[in-house]
């Protein structure tokens, strides 16, 4: 596949030049380690924020560096540094070996089964290069969005932003893999806050958590209609100030796609990370209520619930050609008709547990070790429109857009709040309600799912996420259509 212009930037667009730098690291470690890999990453990120009554703030952040991971005498070592000159790859490789040697003898030898090399090139397909969009066009879009959101009397604060990131990610391993990935992602979003003396209410679009970002070009931002939706969320933020309080009790819910995507992230994605299941993350991120031995037997959800990991789906923040230890992207059913089938795994955790590798080793740039993160993990759609789902609900509540989220360290006991809720009577949306919250236990919740709306209601949301020590960021995506869940505890906060 020939590179498009959007990928012709920076110092590492040239795969052969990058391969030479990786070769320097590989030749340093080749005969001295049981296994080793190197990731050479050049990334540039643009962020522009407009705020009500403030000057725009724009920044362009570039980073280039290399991370080398080695296995020496059964012990792992990792080192990383910026690529300040051509001598860095070899020096970092030496450092990684030294780090590994310090841990030799601390416990049982790490066993890392070998596998055949996999090489090639992958790139994001881009319509319009977001870095080629003029400042004037970006400014005009956000200024209009701010104006639209602030038009409602009572809106006290509005922030609107667009972001774009481009990356050259090159990987080599001592098994002979040589992979070149050229990625682009683009996103945007806005938040309006309305405040009174006794109340502060926030409305966001398209996602309350860092907007929405896709593996795509500027066309992704244009498709968001930030201006039209800015006006809507501004009005809703003000309306929430005087809306009735959402009720406490046990209720039937239709949960909108954005909130379902966060439910997937917290109670499915994290719960299915195999390193977490095996205890590697227990000191910080926690463990999981799921055990490796539950594969094939645990009824995680109702038959309406199927959750899939598929980074081969183009255009998402979780799309890639290979994960960050070189495993080819693949589709993997994690939950199939409610039954737990697979985990989000990497090579090391799969080797220790005897489970299959699903290609979920993800690392933030060059500076951090790959750990198990979600890829593009989504709830398979069912059938029918949102209107049909509300009709099936009958009496209950339609809720959307996350306001707060919390879940325990086993990913079992959760509590979420949403920005908006609507009373639903006989299948029709009625009053707007404020401060809706619901809580429950993960498998009980997913087993209460009666139906999922169809592909026409399916949406994908890109997320940042944190994990590991030192904490690193993961970038991933979740897709969902609205779902209908029965007998959910509400009004818990």
């Amino acid at each position, binding site marked *: 596949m020939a590179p498009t212009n959007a990928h012709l930037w920076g110092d590492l667009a040239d795969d052969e030049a990058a391969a030479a730098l990786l070769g320097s690291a590989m030749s340093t470690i080749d005969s001295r380690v049981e296994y080793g890999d190197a990731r050479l990453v050049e990334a540039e990120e643009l962020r522009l924020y407009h705020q009500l009554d403030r*000057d725009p703030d724009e920044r362009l952040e570039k980073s280039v560096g290399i991370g080398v991971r080695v296995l020496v005498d059964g012990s792992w070592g990792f080192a990383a540094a910026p690529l*300040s000159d051509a001598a860095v790859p070899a020096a970092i490789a030496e450092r990684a070996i030294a780090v590994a040697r310090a841990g030799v003898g601390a416990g049982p030898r790490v066993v890392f089964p070998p596998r055949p090399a996999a090489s090639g090139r992958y790139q994001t397909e881009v319509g319009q290069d977001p870095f080629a969009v003029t400042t004037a066009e970006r400014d005009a879009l956000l200024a209009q969005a701010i104006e639209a959101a602030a038009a409602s009397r009572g809106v006290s604060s509005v922030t609107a932003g667009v972001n774009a990131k481009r990356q050259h990610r090159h990987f080599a391993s001592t098994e002979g893999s040589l992979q070149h990935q050229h990625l682009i992602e683009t996103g945007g979003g806005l938040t309006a806050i309305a405040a009174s003396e006794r109340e502060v209410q926030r409305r966001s679009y398209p996602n309350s958590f860092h907007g929405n970002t896709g593996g795509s070009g500027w066309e992704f931002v244009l498709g968001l209609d930030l201006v039209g939706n800015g006006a809507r969320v501004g009005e809703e933020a003000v309306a929430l100030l005087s809306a009735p309080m959402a009720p406490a009790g046990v209720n039937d819910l239709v949960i909108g796609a954005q909130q379902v995507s966060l439910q997937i992230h917290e109670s499915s994605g994290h719960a299915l990370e195999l390193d977490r299941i095996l205890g590697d993350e227990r000191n910080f991120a926690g463990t999981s209520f799921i055990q490796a031995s539950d594969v094939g037997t645990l009824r995680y959800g109702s038959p309406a619930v199927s959750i899939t990991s598929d980074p081969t789906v183009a255009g998402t923040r979780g799309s890639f050609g290979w994960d960050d230890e070189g495993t080819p992207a693949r589709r993997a059913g994690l939950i199939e008709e409610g039954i737990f089938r697979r985990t989000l795994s990497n090579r090391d955790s799969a080797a220790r547990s005897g489970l299959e590798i699903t290609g979920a080793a993800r690392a933030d740039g060059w500076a951090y070790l790959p750990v198990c993160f979600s890829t593009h993990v989504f709830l398979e759609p069912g059938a029918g429109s949102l209107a049909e789902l509300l009709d099936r609900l009958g009496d209950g509540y339609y809720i959307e857009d996350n306001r707060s989220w919390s879940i325990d360290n086993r990913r079992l006991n959760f509590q979420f709040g949403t920005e908006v809720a609507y009373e639903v009577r006989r299948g029709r949306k009625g009053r707007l309600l404020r401060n809706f919250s619901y809580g429950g236990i993960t498998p009980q919740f997913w087993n209460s799912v009666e139906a999922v709306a169809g592909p026409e209601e399916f949406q994908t949301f890109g997320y940042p996420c944190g994990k590991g020590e030192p904490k690193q960021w993961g970038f991933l995506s979740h897709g969902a259509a609205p779902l209908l869940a029965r007998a959910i505890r509400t009004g*818990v906060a």
Partner: protein
Amino acid sequence: MQPPLDGARTMEALDAALRSTAADEFEIAVLARSGEYTRFAGQVIHQPQDIVEVQYLVRALVNGHPYRVATSTAADLDRAVAAAATGARIRAELSKEAGQVRLAVIDAAATAAGTGTGTGADVGAGSPPSRPVAADPAKPQAPYWYRDTEAYDVAARSALAKEAMATALAAGGEAAGMFGRAVTQQLVATSAGIRRQIAATEASGALTVTIDDGTAHWVDLSRSAGRLDVAGSVARAVNQARAGRGRVELPAGRYPVVLGAEAVGELLGFLPDVGFTGTLAAAGIGITAQAGQLLAAPLVNVADDAGADVGLPIGFDIEGVTKRRVDFFRHGLVGAAVTDLATAAALGRPSTGHAHIAREQVPEPTAPNIVMPAGPGTEDELIAQLEHGVYLQRFWYTRLVDRITGTITGVTRDACFLIESGRLTTPLNGLRFTESVLGVLAGVEAIGADVRSQPIPNVWNGAISAPSVRVAAFRLGAAPIEPAA
């Protein structure tokens, strides 16, 4: 153990870059960190890491319009300066009016008093000494530089990790955690003549011990490794986890509690969110509208304090402004917000020196070294003061629910116990809670002496330091709230 950058040479590079005339003004902040981490779980050091990260953050200003460009290598600095100038010039040309942004100016009087923006006078402060100068490794050889942290090397940390795993195994359980050290470097140079730089050591430890269903946690960090007491903390965590076996459910309700230092720190981390930032104060949102009112118990003092000898203090921010101590609560009275240059200007005040840019977020002032001073009693003494109550070691996944009331939700985690007749007795399962941070601070009845520090996620050199406290009442359990009338 060396800083990732040569401070003198880097400052020379900044000087050279600042000779550019492509923009009206320039500010360059350099944030560099060389970290070493020994991460372990079960019986294996599974993720030993050695990471160097560097960011040169250039801000150019043309007619009051800013543009920032960052890069990770000195070789790319000139390009970054030129790109920032181009960006600022485009912004100025697009605007019909002068922009509002101003960079820091040198305030000699304030600098002398230790409260203002610095000049070249403090160049070199905090750099590691070129030769051994002090016999006591627990005392700083320069501001923020501790030789005992130099000794907390990979061999020492690996030995401690092995000992922790072996101790937990001998008790029938497992240990997981991370011991680390780092050198943080921060430099700021501006075309107005500000020159600041610091190099600081950092040591950290965190550990979870699991024995059957009993777990216990410890975390601490400091500029000085000698203050961590890793070995003692491992032993305490093993004992707590052993005592924590056989957990039971606690009925939902309101209980008198002793909150461990880590739980208190987690709560204090929400103070910026309830209004102690210039962003919220300038928008008229949050608690600082009630400045001077008694909203916490009179014995509660909380501040962001770069002068404190705990946490991860750094004396100036990325705009080159000296950090002032900002009281959030002083004897229970509501204080003020931390500001950067932009929000300070909006509020008509001088900046408190708390400029910050978090990844993926709008630049806004942040409180990076929140400190609640120690009280007179030990944690055991606080527990002994309760006839009946609950001890909560740690909270987890806490999130803001209501900014006005300071209500958060989260779950309790690790070593939590019933308190009966002044002693820890029955271990408790983790429990969801929804409670007001402000309500908790209003109910503080006693403060412990055991200050510990924990990191603030996504905040450069961010730490919260707090002691344990005894609180009159804390609501535990997901009891439904009453709908509004």
